[in-house]
Every structure is written in structure tokens, then in C-alpha cells.
């Protein structure tokens, strides 16, 4: 028994369909409800009896429940549902995506490698490390330049009096110093023991009349560690030169004095040396550092 139409404005066509549906025998399925009736059933526009009739029809029919479920899906799609896509739509979507990727690549250009945040961070870190290294190196260069340009006082002096030619090596003890250069004063052998002739060049050198001399320091293996040309005798008849300390670590050397007249390099004096360094004691600190090597 009908409980009254829930909606007074039900479609006349739907009403007629329902009447036809009822006449066909709903218990045995009979004629199937149309999609319009099913839509009305889903929208709660039918009476209770009509709902019951349709539900009874569902028990004997397979198509109508499927149709109603499809209507339900269409009107109330579930969130996780994904619609089936046609091949044409997929192809078009893929072409659009490729075109977009190509445009993005062209726009980024040379900076493509740092497009990702992680790569950009790595690049910035490397650049920062390089900049810090360069800054440190420049600062060190400035410090070195200031230190090198600062006039050096209190040169450690190594006076080497060659004396008479001998076979034993001459021991030279040099005071330890923080300075960079070592002042070496070489007294040729003819001046030793003759104070009055210190103002005169030694005989060997006087004889040649050379205006320039060369001095060579070689290791016991024959490797040259320092050489200087164009040296001239001072008032005391000695050759004075400054040598970087780093070139003269403690060890055995051979000192050679060369005559450079006429472009030749003639050895006029030579001596084996053994250099050693002595740390300044508390008593000698502040005094003028001097060393002597006397044969």
C-alpha cells in the first residue's frame, strides 16, 4: 500500500513507467524498471511500496542492480577511483608533458645542473670553500710580503776564515735565529794571521785583478745549494754575502771561491765545511748573533 508520494512534483513520465512496471509483475522480475525509475529510486522519490517492488525485482534480476550501482558511481564517485583513460587521451597528455619538459629544459639552460636544491647546495658549498681558501692564501701572501719587506736586523753572521788549505772539514756553528737570511763573511786564506793585510785583497785574488768573484756552496754530493756571482772584496778583503737560511740546513758542504775574469769560472780557493746551528741560550739572547768557523 502506497504511503503517498514523497514528492508532489514527480515526473509524469516516471509515474507512467512505474505503473507499467507494477503491471508486469514485480515479484518475478517481469519488466525491468527503466533508468529513470532507478534514478528516482536512488533519489528517494518513490513510495515505500514502490521501493519494495524494486528491491524485490533486484532479487531476481542481475542487470538492474548493476545499472543502479553504475548510476550511484556516476553521481557519487569515490575519492580513490580513477577513471579509465582512452589511448588517445593518454597520447595527447604524454605529448603535452614532453613539450613542457622540453620548454623547461630550454629555459633553465646552463644552470640545469644546479636545478635541484641539493645540487645547488653542493655547488655553493664548493664555491664557498674555494673562496675561503683563496682568501686565506691572499692573507698569507700579504703577511709574507710584510715580513719580507721588513728590514732584518740582527743577522746571524757566519764568519768563515778559510785559512791555510787543509784536508779536515771546517766546523761552523751558527746561532739559531728567527731571521730568514744568514750573513756569511768569507775570509780568503791569505788574510788569516795577517791583520795588517786585511785591508788588502788576498794575493791570489790580487794577482788576477778580478773585479768579480763567484762563491759556490755545494753539498757533499756535489749538488749546488747556493751560488753568487759578481761579488767584490770589501775593505777587509772578505767576501760578504747573505744566504737564505732555508738553503743551508745543517750538514756538510764545500765552499768554493771562483774567479770570474774573462767569463771563466776558475776556482781559486775551496774548503770543506760542516754547518751546525746552536740555539741561543738565556745568557746570549739579545746579543748580536755571530758564529765563527776557524780552521
Amino acid at each position: 500500500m502506497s504511503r503517498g508520494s514523497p514528492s508532489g512534483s514527480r515526473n509524469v513520465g516516471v509515474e507512467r513507467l512505474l505503473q507499467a512496471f507494477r503491471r508486469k509483475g514485480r515479484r518475478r522480475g517481469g519488466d525491468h524498471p527503466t533508468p529513470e525509475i532507478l534514478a528516482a529510486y536512488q533519489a528517494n522519490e518513490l513510495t515505500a511500496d514502490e521501493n519494495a517492488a524494486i528491491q524485490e525485482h533486484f532479487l531476481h534480476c542481475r542487470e538492474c542492480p548493476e545499472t543502479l550501482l553504475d548510476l550511484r558511481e556516476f553521481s557519487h564517485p569515490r575519492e580513490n577511483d580513477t577513471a579509465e583513460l582512452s589511448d588517445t587521451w593518454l597520447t595527447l597528455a604524454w605529448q603535452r608533458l614532453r613539450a613542457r619538459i622540453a620548454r623547461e629544459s630550454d629555459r633553465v639552460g646552463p644552470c640545469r645542473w644546479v636545478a635541484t636544491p641539493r645540487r645547488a647546495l653542493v655547488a655553493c658549498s664548493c664555491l664557498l670553500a674555494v673562496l675561503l681558501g683563496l682568501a686565506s692564501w691572499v692573507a698569507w701572501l700579504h703577511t709574507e710580503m710584510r715580513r719580507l719587506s721588513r728590514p732584518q736586523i740582527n743577522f746571524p753572521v757566519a764568519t768563515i776564515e778559510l785559512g791555510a788549505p787543509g784536508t779536515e772539514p771546517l766546523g761552523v756553528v751558527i746561532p739559531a735565529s728567527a731571521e730568514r737570511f744568514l750573513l756569511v763573511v768569507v775570509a780568503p786564506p791569505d788574510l788569516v794571521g795577517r791583520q795588517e793585510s786585511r785591508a788588502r785583497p788576498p794575493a791570489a785574488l790580487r794577482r788576477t785583478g778580478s773585479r768579480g768573484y763567484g762563491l759556490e756552496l755545494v753539498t757533499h754530493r756535489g749538488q749546488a745549494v747556493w751560488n753568487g756571482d759578481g761579488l767584490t772584496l770589501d775593505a777587509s778583503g772578505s767576501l760578504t754575502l747573505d744566504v737564505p737560511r732555508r738553503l743551508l740546513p745543517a750538514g756538510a758542504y764545500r765552499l768554493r771561491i771562483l774567479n770570474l775574469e774573462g767569463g771563466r769560472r776558475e776556482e781559486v780557493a775551496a774548503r770543506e765545511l760542516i754547518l751546525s746551528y746552536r740555539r741561543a741560550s738565556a745568557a746570549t739572547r739579545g746579543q748580536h748573533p755571530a758564529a765563527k768557523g776557524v780552521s
Partner: protein
Amino acid sequence: MHDDQQERLRAALETLPDEMRRCFLLRYVQGFDEGEIAVLMKLRIETVRLRLFQARGRLGVAGVTVREPERGG
């Protein structure tokens, strides 16, 4: 299924309320799941589960054993 069993099932189904019977038949004859039955019967899914549980209980009392069907009956 034997005739006597079918008769027993039919008699048991007739004793069920309409809503319960329809839920039972849609589930174990037509093979719809609980969510689909809820849509077809315009019920909440919890109500459908309850009706099925009740129907199984009553049929079990009547000596009818129910097993889960495959989809499509």
C-alpha cells in the same frame, strides 16, 4: 541442493523480515558485497552487516548452513 534442503531454506526465508530476507538473497544468491547491498537497499553498511548476521543466525537455527558465495551467484 536436495529438494528437502531447498524446501527448508525456502520456508526459513519466508520467516525472515523482508529487509533481512532481501539482504540475505542479494548477498548469498546474487553475490553482491555489503557495500553494494547498502546502495541497492538504501541502508547503511552497518545495518546490512547486522541484517546478514541476523539472517545467518536465524537460518542456522532452522538448520540451514550458509557459506560465502563467489560473485555472480
